[in-house]
């Protein structure tokens, strides 16, 4: 029997690698622009409003670029991988909402004395997302 026509080149794998690489580049660019927007006004241009505004606009634009790269990455996945991602995102959103609101409440009801920080929530959401993807991959192994 002959081999399938597409056996020589793996279009799915190549496309997926390209989309992943593209998403990585946009994510790194976004993190760098975030660092610049956070620290540069104080250390580089002494809170010059025009330059700060420009850096914020560039940062948001790169953020949207990252979102589009993420959409392209997700659309490039096959249906099972998309299912795994969808389940992970749903769990991440749910955990973010439940934990986030409860965490914020802890200060209001004086169970914690420090101010709840967004990065703590982001960290929990990232860990949830990563764990859910791992669990999803294991489920279909």
């Amino acid at each position, binding site marked *: *029997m002959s081999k*399938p026509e597409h056996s020589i080149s793996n279009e799915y*794998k190549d496309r997926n690698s390209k989309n992943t690489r593209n998403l990585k580049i946009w994510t790194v660019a976004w993190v760098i622009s975030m660092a610049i927007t956070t620290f540069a006004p104080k250390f580089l241009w002494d809170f010059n409003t025009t330059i700060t505004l420009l850096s914020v606009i560039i940062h948001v634009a790169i953020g949207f670029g990252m979102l589009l790269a993420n959409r392209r990455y997700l659309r490039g996945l096959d249906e099972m991988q998309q299912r795994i991602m969808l389940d992970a995102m749903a769990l991440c959103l749910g955990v973010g909402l439940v934990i986030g609101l409860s965490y914020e409440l802890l200060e209001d009801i004086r169970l914690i004395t420090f101010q709840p920080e967004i990065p703590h929530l982001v960290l929990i959401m990232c860990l949830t997302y990563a764990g859910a993807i791992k669990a999803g991959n294991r489920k279909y192994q």
Partner: protein
Amino acid sequence: MKNRLKVLRAERDWTQAQLASALDVSRQTINAIEKGKFDPSLPLAFKAARLFNMTIEQIFQDEAE
């Protein structure tokens, strides 16, 4: 849902990677379908049927039947 993907693939001496490439999905997805852990969508089932030159029913069967 049961399927004969593994048998059909073996008859043609194709690897999971080759079948995955032909159907434009990941090898993990082919593995999950063969093991019955993931049910493919109708478009993917049609694609598999076209590849093997069979009808969908000849490849995929409802387990209730």
